[in-house]
């Protein structure tokens, strides 16, 4: 929570370049090899339709150029429900949870010692914690890339096909409908080296697969399981985003001779920039914070801590070991770390994303 204090609008974003190019224009810069007139035609068409007037000095990140001006009353009123719920059910409980990080307390709260930063010091001195940090980075990056890549391919394919489209959509969305506990159990079962049908297939292919005794196998297993559960999330927003790509633009590009795949990369994908940015951030947050149920069901963080990512460790230390102080200290570090990563993501990508379509 304290980390929020220094966050002021100006410190996050240096003045966004007033003439920051739109995604479409950027894609033109990025591919000097292609100089087809068709692409320019597309860009111009897009410009004629909607490109906002640029060079306004008062442009702020994340604010519509055409807005309803200054004034605090109405926006405050609009924000009020969200803020009230957050204050009561998020910020107050979270603050109380995080104050545990400087305390040594028994779970029932009968004895409480103030210990300054002992809990943090203990973590930094702990090799297990450092191992967990490394595992988390691997896990999150791999999970993010795999999820997004597969979701993009599936969404593209869904957009292309006509027949059975809604059947595909329904099926691909189903993993989100399965209770995480069951999903974890099913994955653990399918890839169980002793009885799992898919593990047997791997063995038949000559792959020695044993997540119980091979740390790498275990890490791959949880990456795949976590991705599997999350692909549908990315997928549905990409499908919706693709629906919104104006047909006129696609047709124009087709007339100019761009094939379906090139059109996808040239027009659809840049237009999906805001969605993809949203998904990249959400995947990151999912991997960082929401995956412990799957880890718990699939590997218990093992073997020997190989899949013990930070949030699972927070969960185990707090929920199972009842070591509230250490768990809270880990939460503070995890939040700080995640907040820095997210700020960087916003800092480097948000104003490059093409919102101006």
């Amino acid at each position, binding site marked *: 929570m304290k980390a929020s204090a220094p966050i002021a609008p100006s410190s996050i974003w240096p003045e966004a370049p007033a003439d920051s190019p739109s995604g479409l224009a950027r894609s033109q810069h990025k591919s000097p090899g292609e100089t087809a007139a068709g692409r320019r035609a597309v860009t111009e068409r897009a410009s004629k339709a909607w490109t906002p007037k640029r060079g306004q000095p008062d442009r702020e990140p994340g604010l519509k150029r055409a807005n309803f001006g200054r004034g605090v009353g109405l926006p405050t009123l609009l924000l009020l429900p969200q803020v009230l719920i957050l204050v009561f059910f998020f910020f107050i409980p979270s603050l109380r949870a995080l104050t545990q990080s400087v305390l040594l*307390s028994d779970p*029932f*709260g009968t004895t409480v010692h103030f210990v300054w930063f002992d809990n943090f010091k203990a973590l930094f001195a702990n090799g297990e914690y450092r191992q967990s940090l490394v595992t988390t980075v691997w896990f999150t990056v791999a999970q993010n890339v795999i999820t997004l890549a597969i979701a993009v391919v599936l969404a593209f394919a869904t957009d292309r096909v006509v027949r059975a489209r809604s059947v595909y959509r329904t099926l691909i969305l189903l993993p989100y409908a399965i209770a995480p506990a069951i999903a974890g159990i099913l994955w653990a079962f399918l890839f169980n080296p002793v*009885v799992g049908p898919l593990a047997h297939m791997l063995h038949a292919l000559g792959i020695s697969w044993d997540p119980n005794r091979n740390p790498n196998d275990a890490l791959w297993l949880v990456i795949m399981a976590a991705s599997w559960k999350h692909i549908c999330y990315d997928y549905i927003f990409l499908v919706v985003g693709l629906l919104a790509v104006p047909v006129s633009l696609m047709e124009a590009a087709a007339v100019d001779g761009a094939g379906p795949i090139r059109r996808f990369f040239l027009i659809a994908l840049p237009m999906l920039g805001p969605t993809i940015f949203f998904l990249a951030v959400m995947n990151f947050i999912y991997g960082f914070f929401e995956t412990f149920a799957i880890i718990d069901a699939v590997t218990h963080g*093992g073997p020997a801590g190989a899949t013990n990512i930070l949030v699972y460790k927070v969960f185990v230390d707090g929920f199972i070991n009842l070591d509230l102080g250490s768990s809270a200290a880990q939460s503070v570090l995890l939040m700080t770390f995640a907040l820095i990563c997210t700020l960087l993501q916003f800092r480097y990508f948000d104003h490059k994303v093409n919102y101006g379509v």
Partner: protein
Amino acid sequence: MKKMAFIAALFGVLALAAPAQAARVEVQWWHAMSGVLGERLNELVEKFNASQDKYTVVAVAKGNYDEVTNGVIAAYRAKRPPEMVQIAERGYMTMLLSGAVVPVQELLDQKGYKVDFSDFVKPVASFWSYKGRMSAMPFNSSTPIFWYNKDHFQKAGFDKPAATWQELEKQLYAIKAKGVSECGTVLPGDFFWSLLENYSAINNQPYGTLANGFDGLGTEFVYNKTKVVSQVARLKKWLDDGVMQIAGQGFSPEQLFTSGRCSTFVNSTASHGNIERNAKINWSATFLPHESDINPPLNSTIGGGAIWVMKGHTPERYDAVAAFLDFVAQAETQVWWHGVTGYVPATNKAYAMARERGYYKDHPTREIAVLQLSRGTPNDNSRGFRFGNFVQTMLAQRSEVEAVFTGQKQPQQAMDDAVKRGNEILRQFEKLNAGKGTEWSPEAK
């Protein structure tokens, strides 16, 4: 001075608003039993509710043991705890020193119930009592026993499993070599309990100093200097040679045994309920093996849960709680529970009653656990384990043993590290709880 109170009940229901005509006092019992065991527990509660007309116990399933524990912590901190809660054996010290519970024996004495606490089976009584007084009501107690596939042993030319680990090892290797079954045994999911802790008790090995923690919070783990190290090395060797399999996540290790794939299985006696009904193999069970140089072996220790009574309720509700706990302790209830689950009867009287009725003639393997628990006189190494944060130290130990299984560490190194980690955790518990527990002494009353 005049006293006034403004109470603003903005929203929600008041728990106190009981229906006027029903004079029954309602109390809650949060528990961790799911599936068939959950159904049995509900039957038990219904039996109690039907047996009298003053009290109603409401059993609420609150997930697994960890979830129940967290549920009760959250509820207690929010000042609305249940009257009773079922907590696993590893949570003993946490509950005992929480300052949030009412001692069971005090409560029953005070309410005038004559429960014979001296009649409880020794390892059960010693585990759940502090300074000679029962702190929680033993409910579901189990102990690991040795299950085996009779046909496999016969095919390999053996009558039954050997009594010592050394001889058993030869048998299991022979079973594997003769191709009788794919694997000699399965690594239990709770191997730390059955194959390390109970192993230490049976083989008279100290697990920690100060009588495994019974003599004070200053206890330290010492299992890196005992036979536990060679036990871990043995398990690793069996795994490498394919004599033992890890079931892993996704299905229960028990299935490797009940399906006839593996020949033996160390598991809780509570598996009886399932194995009797559903295993299609010719199975039997016997005592856990012991080391050849340890004779006679000592008793095993218990696992499972007990019912704790929470502070902060009205006397009427404690009347209901006491009546229910008395009901649970009765031999008749114990025998029934023993029969429909696989847990052991907690009192000698219940055991004798089951015996008299010829129960063990039909179910000979059900007696093993009781006999194993009550053989000899428990000493400092076999009375039980009294370590604070026992879940946390166990998870650290499990992780280190896994490092042996994955080949990252040698057994001695791993156990040294486990003890080091465990002791840090114990010191933290000591720091937090030093001087607590005095209210449990009988003389404090």
